[in-house]
């Protein structure tokens, strides 16, 4: 019998029923929620007179709209009445329908939903995890089948604890070898997207394997799986191992006592069998991956830091040429400009991609005793959660950042998508540790270059991108 992939094991262990055409009803273990994609789902339940199926599956908190400063003001800094209404609507909905975990705005543990899930042990190997948010793929780092859904599906899960769907194709992305110092999980993720394209993973669930993946910390694996969706794959996966178990042990909602041993025994079976068949295998050599910087308006428009911005005249395909020309015009860049000559106005260190303690430590390492460059107007450092913030402060990282002239903020999604007050002005150029460089993503007319936390910190000091391997 042919071996099974990790994805198949996760899928098959959650099938409630299957139609003859392969459409399945899939049981959902964990339902993460935030304020933006849930109000219409709760409203739908109310209008139909339906109840929530299993409130203990819900972990929720507001993160997209919440401000990252002025928390001591009477309004908590939540000045926009439309944003306030959305945050209050989540409060009211959770109060009415219930949840396992809810951290309201300004709670000591509030943060980005994809950071607080794992840090509280509410994301576990072998689970199915969904959220009305495409970056739900993050939780695949634990060997959980985790993917983003729309609001109708949020409502479907609330009402039925299931989703209707068909199995994806399986892709294995194997990264073997050792990365150079200064090359991070973010660079591996961007290099993969550069290779397969933003639609390369469409229709696939991607498992990341190989020695370079095993070498990554849990934080690094979360960064990598987080970016799976930018390669078009709804779900990214890393098989759980000792690092996973070590990370989870003792966390509040992780199993304890006899259940822990039983769980670990099950989790150890959650890996692709030898001989398991993948529909597509992509291989990368870790040693050849350089620090990455995006130059355009799609994550696939990415280059090694030693590269030059592309010249559309050299592109033969008319569609692609038009795409390059449009991206260069939007980004205000000239063809053939060396990446390291691009000067920046702002820096953002944060988001569900790169706001965990390890990310902040890595950024701080570059800052110690240094100041931001004069041309850099603002550097925002936004921790992923209250827990991350306290840990960083206990280690003195906040002091390193503020001494360098950075702003140390309260947790939230912040300038990754700029739904709160943190945003770029038209034409401003930002080195950002977030996940999307789409037009207008960080503010209408804003220009985003996606990079690792190390590169963001180094660019804040130099005022432009630098090869952080040459210190």
């Amino acid at each position, binding site marked *: 019998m042919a071996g099974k992939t990790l994805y198949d094991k996760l899928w098959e262990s959650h099938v*409630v*029923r299957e*139609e003859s*055409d392969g459409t399945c*009803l899939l*049981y959902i*273990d964990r339902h993460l929620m935030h304020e*933006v*994609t849930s109000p*219409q789902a709760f409203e739908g339940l109310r209008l139909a007179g*339906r109840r929530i*199926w299993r409130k203990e599956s819900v972990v929720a908190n507001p993160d997209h*709209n919440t401000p990252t400063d002025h928390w001591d003001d009477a309004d908590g800094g939540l000045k*926009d009445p*439309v*944003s306030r*209404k*959305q945050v209050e609507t989540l409060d009211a909905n959770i109060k009415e329908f219930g949840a396992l975990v809810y951290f309201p705005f300004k709670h000591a543990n509030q943060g980005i939903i994809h950071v607080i899930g794992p840090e509280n042990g509410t994301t*576990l190997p*072998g689970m199915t995890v969904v959220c*009305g*948010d*495409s970056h*739900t793929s993050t939780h695949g780092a634990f060997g959980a089948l985790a993917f*983003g*859904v*729309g*609001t*109708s*599906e949020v409502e*479907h899960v609330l*009402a*039925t*604890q299931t989703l*209707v769907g*068909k199995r994806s194709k399986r892709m294995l992305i194997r990264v073997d070898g050792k990365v150079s110092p200064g090359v991070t999980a973010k660079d591996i993720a961007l290099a993969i997207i550069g290779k397969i394209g*933003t*639609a390369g993973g*469409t*229709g696939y669930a991607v498992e990341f394997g190989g020695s370079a993946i095993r070498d990554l910390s849990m934080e690094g694996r979360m960064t990598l799986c987080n970016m799976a969706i930018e390669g*078009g794959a*709804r779900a990214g996966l890393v098989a759980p191992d000792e690092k996973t178990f070590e990370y989870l042990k003792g966390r509040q*909602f992780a*199993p304890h006592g006899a259940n822990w041993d039983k*769980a670990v025994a*099950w989790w150890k079976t959650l890996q692709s069998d030898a001989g398991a068949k993948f529909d597509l295998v992509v291989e990368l050599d870790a040693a050849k991956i350089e620090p990455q910087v995006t130059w355009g308006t*799609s994550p696939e428009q990415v280059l090694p830091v030693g590269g030059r911005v592309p010249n559309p005249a050299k592109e033969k395909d008319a*569609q692609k040429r038009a*795409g390059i020309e449009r991206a260069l015009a939007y980004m205000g860049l000239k063809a053939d400009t060396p990446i390291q000559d691009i000067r920046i106005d702002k820096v953002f260190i944060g988001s569900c991609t790169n706001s965990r303690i390890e990310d902040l430590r890595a950024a701080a390492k570059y800052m110690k005793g240094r100041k931001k460059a004069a041309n850099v107007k603002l550097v925002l450092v936004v921790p992923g959660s209250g827990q991350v913030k306290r840990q960083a402060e206990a280690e003195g990282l906040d002091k390193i950042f503020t001494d360098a002239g950075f702003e140390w903020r309260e947790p939230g999604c912040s300038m990754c*998508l*700029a*739904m709160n007050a943190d945003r770029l002005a*038209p034409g401003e150029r930002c080195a950002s540790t977030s996940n*999307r460089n*789409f*037009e*207008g*993503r960080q503010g*209408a*007319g804003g220009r985003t270059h996606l990079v690792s936390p190390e590169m963001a910190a180094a660019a804040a000091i130099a005022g432009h991108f630098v090869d952080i391997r040459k210190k």
Partner: protein
Amino acid sequence: MKPFKYLDGLVCPLDRANVDTDAIIPKQFLKSIKRSGFGPYLFDEWRYADIGEPDMDCSQRPLKKDFVLNQPRYQGAQILLARDNFGCGSSREHAPWAIEDYGFRVVIAPSFADIFFGNCYKNGVLPIVASAAIVDQLFRECAAQKGYRLRVDLETQTVRNPAGEWFRFDITPHRKHCLLNGLDEIGLTLQHADQIKAFEAKHKAAQPWLFA
């Protein structure tokens, strides 16, 4: 959900690849707690010369005249013709809500991003995948003929051009059934509530920590 059976509609071409959901409906409009009213903000940054905010009166805003949705010949369009990887990025269902609220019922492209593709069906919007060669032909014909229309028939899964040429598209039987009848998927799933409960009990016995 509005059922979808048949549409004879005007076609609007959007000739760029990788159109993301941030472009379809920018983040500032996601603060609404409603499902409706997003149509005036569809493609907001490409469509208007100013920066849009929720609750603006869009009839008073300066337009970017070159953008397709602003061209007189495409007013009233119900079919959006697009390029590869349409709807990539965020999972926001506000994207199909905006598309439907504007008046589109069909989007034709060589490929779609997965989450957006699924979201369309939940909102009475039919996403049709056609080969790159067919999409190229539709773009050419649309540019050449003012008032270019296509006839989309879900029952026979066909799209027909004014010359009478047609192609067939794929859709799963389940999605077709829901769309043809405007069915509420939750109601259908709850018919299997006993099976869900039985699965849940078995799952809980095997992995009790998932239910802690």
